[in-house]
């Protein structure tokens, strides 16, 4: 780990003074430092192990978050914000005796305005709890990551999270109107706003997806989305993965943007079927789960187009969920697919890249070949509609040397995705996991521009340092290069 950075005071030898100040600012029972517990907070849901934090704080208000940040700065410690810890890219993994700010006790829905369609929530509100609370009012929160039963809205903001239904409704950024933020210097402000065009630069847009490196969100105004009057969920199965992938492109080319198009290959379909019994055909090469929603006329028209296009691409069967119960069962298989993997091997490494839809077949073929070369099992369950791949490399971590093979295969998957014009991450973020891959996607100038943006919010590198950008991203001097040159 490269820990060279500018502007922070050197780390002190003892944590006791720091802990005492934090305990006095919050309450001692909401500042934890038991070694066993610190070890748990040294990691998130990725495979990356950090260092134990000096203290884990559970603030209940903006003012308490502010105190945590100010005390950390005074002690020269980094601040690492954490929601539910479901992140897969190491975005909430601490280093350097950090002060962790865990938002789980800031879990209130503060207000809901159904007329103007927004809600103010605290960052620790669980994604699915918010939608459940909004449901009787006729609304929901559109981003629906697979971890929505446990991930927090604050974490969704940090990672600009997606989910199956983001195909039609957009990722988290499209659903965040304003964020109250404690900046890395301890100041508090609101980025964005409820009005149409809050003045100045779109700092709200910059903050969403900044993975805790621009400060800590303490209140969030989210857009709430009306529940669709009609929904049709279809399951279609193919005997060839290429047919399923071609059907995805053809559905979009036919002018239909479904609410969701999910693909599962044969291995994950079998595992999920054995796990939940959703009625998935276990002999198919791939299945597509397609959902269209909206007003009844459009739903009927689009369901017809989707079914026709699927048959044109050799779908063996097209099953339409007859009722809400069947629909829920079809989705349950998809949403619990990752859990089903445990039936095959005890561990998995979940990747996240995006490729153009037209490259899906080629990249999937490559991914199977990469896994074969490294003697690994790969399963694919992903958001096919927006080309967002999620190859799961499944393995047994007790096998010697296995992690090296898993990482080598992962790097090859990233490289092939970029080669066809794709990107590093569709919804998990960069964190520590893909930091060193950033230069594969961005030029030095583009990394420099991103480093400048980071510097605007956090000139001293206090907030979740060393995430997203590789070290040395800020260019010193380009004056010796000729004008207009590509660098």
């Amino acid at each position, binding site marked *: 780990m490269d820990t060279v950075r500018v502007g922070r005071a050197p780390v002190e030898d003892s944590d006791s003074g720091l802990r005492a100040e934090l305990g006095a600012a919050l309450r001692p029972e909401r500042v934890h430092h038991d070694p066993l517990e610190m070890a748990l907070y040294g990691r998130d849901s990725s495979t990356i192990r950090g260092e134990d934090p000096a203290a884990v704080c559970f603030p209940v208000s903006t003012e308490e978050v502010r105190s945590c940040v100010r005390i950390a700065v005074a002690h020269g410690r980094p601040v690492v914000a954490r929601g539910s810890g479901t992140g897969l890219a190491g975005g909430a993994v601490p280093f350097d005796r950090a002060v962790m700010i865990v938002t789980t006790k800031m879990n209130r829905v503060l207000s809901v305005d159904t007329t103007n369609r927004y809600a103010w929530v605290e960052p620790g509100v669980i994604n699915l709890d918010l939608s459940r609370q909004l449901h009787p009012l006729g609304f929901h929160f559109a981003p629906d990551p697979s971890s929505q039963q446990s991930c927090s809205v604050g974490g969704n903001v940090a990672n600009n999270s997606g989910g199956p239904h983001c195909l039609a409704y957009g990722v988290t950024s499209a659903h965040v109107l304003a964020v109250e933020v404690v900046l890395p210097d301890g100041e508090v402000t609101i980025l964005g706003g409820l009005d149409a065009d809050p003045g100045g630069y*779109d700092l709200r*847009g910059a903050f969403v997806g900044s993975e805790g490196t621009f400060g800590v969100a303490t209140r969030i105004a989210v857009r709430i989305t009306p529940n669709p009057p009609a929904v049709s969920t279809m399951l279609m199965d193919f005997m060839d993965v290429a047919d399923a992938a071609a059907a995805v492109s053809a559905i979009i*080319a036919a002018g239909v*943007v479904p609410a969701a198009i999910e693909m599962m290959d044969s291995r994950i379909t079998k595992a999920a079927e054995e796990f939940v019994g959703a009625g998935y055909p276990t002999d198919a090469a791939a299945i597509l789960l397609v959902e269209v929603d909206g007003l009844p006329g459009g739903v009927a028209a689009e369901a017809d187009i989707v079914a026709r296009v699927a048959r044109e691409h050799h779908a063996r069967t097209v099953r339409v969920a007859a009722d809400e119960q069947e629909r829920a069962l079809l989705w349950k298989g998809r949403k619990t697919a990752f859990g089903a993997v445990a039936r095959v091997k005890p561990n998995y490494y979940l990747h996240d890249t995006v490729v153009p839809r037209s490259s899906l077949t080629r990249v999937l073929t490559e991914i199977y070949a990469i896994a074969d070369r490294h003697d690994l099992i790969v399963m694919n369950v992903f958001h096919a509609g*927006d080309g967002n791949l999620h190859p799961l490399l499944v393995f047994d971590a007790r096998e010697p040397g296995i992690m090296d093979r898993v990482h080598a295969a992962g790097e090859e998957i990233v490289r092939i995705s970029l080669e066809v014009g794709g*990107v590093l991450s*569709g919804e998990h*973020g960069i964190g520590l996991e893909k930091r060193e891959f950033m230069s594969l996607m961005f030029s030095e100038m583009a990394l*420099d521009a991103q480093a400048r943006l980071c510097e605007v919010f956090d000139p001293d590198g206090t907030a979740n340092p060393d995430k997203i950008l590789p070290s040395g991203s800020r260019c010193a001097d380009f004056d010796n290069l000729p004008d*207009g040159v590509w660098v």
Partner: protein
Amino acid sequence: MSAATTARSDVALARFAERVGVHGPVTVVGGRTRWEVGGPVDPRARDVSPPTGVGEFIPAEMTVRVNAGTTVAELQAVVGEAGQRVVMAGPAGSTVGGTLAVGHSGLDRLGAGPLREVLLEATYISAEGRVVRVGGPTVKNVSGYDLCRVLVGSLGTIGFLGEVIMRTTPQPETSGWWSGSGEPTEIRARLHWPMSVLWDGTTTWVQLAGYEADVSAESAILEREGLRSVKGPPTLPPHRWSLAPSELTGHDFGGRFVAEIGVGTVHAERPAPHRPADAVLTRLHRRLRATFDPTGRLNPGRTVPGVDPGEPDASSDQRQSSEPESTRPEPTRPEPTQPEPTQPESRGPESS
């Protein structure tokens, strides 16, 4: 994108970078249709124009690559041939780059979303004269910091847009406008997903778009409320105000107005009153501009509405400038937004 197209695009961008250069004040010119937004540019600034032309468009990817100097009309014509559109509108003659730089959404923002959502990848020329590509070409992407959001509405003060990749969307099967008296918020609540609900204090206008069957069913709701089919939206007064949607009723706009219900944009006869900016935000805004343009050479004099220009922030990391002090523009207080030229009928709803 084919290798030949990529090469042509790279050459055009490198030439644009040469025109922007590395020294002296410079301003980027699009269609000059909203030139007054953000206040007058220092007259010493050199004019430069970005490249033009629509690049790769793959309907099945629902993305289009386009040079920033292309008019919005030309872009819409190209993607329209495949039954798609870009959620972007502007006065006749406005360019893609200019529209993104100004950041104004169209009248269909309620249903189609804000302009900022369409920008996936941006290639701009930096204050140092470099070609910088940010964002990514796919419809979904969270790789690195989201500089595209910062560029939309930044009035060329962060960099000059050269080429962009934008999201396209299928055109609706049908669309239409309805108008009549009636409480706009109640009318909106009875519809699932109207594209636009406008209100001038007495009359409500509604735009519906989608499948025939749905538009027909929803328009029946409107007709029961006494609304009738009309040609289009009302003529818009020239000034834009930005409010929270909850603040629209009972507000004095000093004359005729047309409010976008559920959005908060108000088109009024008078300029919007000055709103004091939060001190912390002001510091961030100033630091942002100074970090990306340390010598103040990009669009000097022009300020993003809502940013108090003031003196450069002393606490920001001002890097050493290679510019002589005299070429630095004086900070200029922004003028309130001037009337946008009222255009004859054309494709964009904002141009009515």
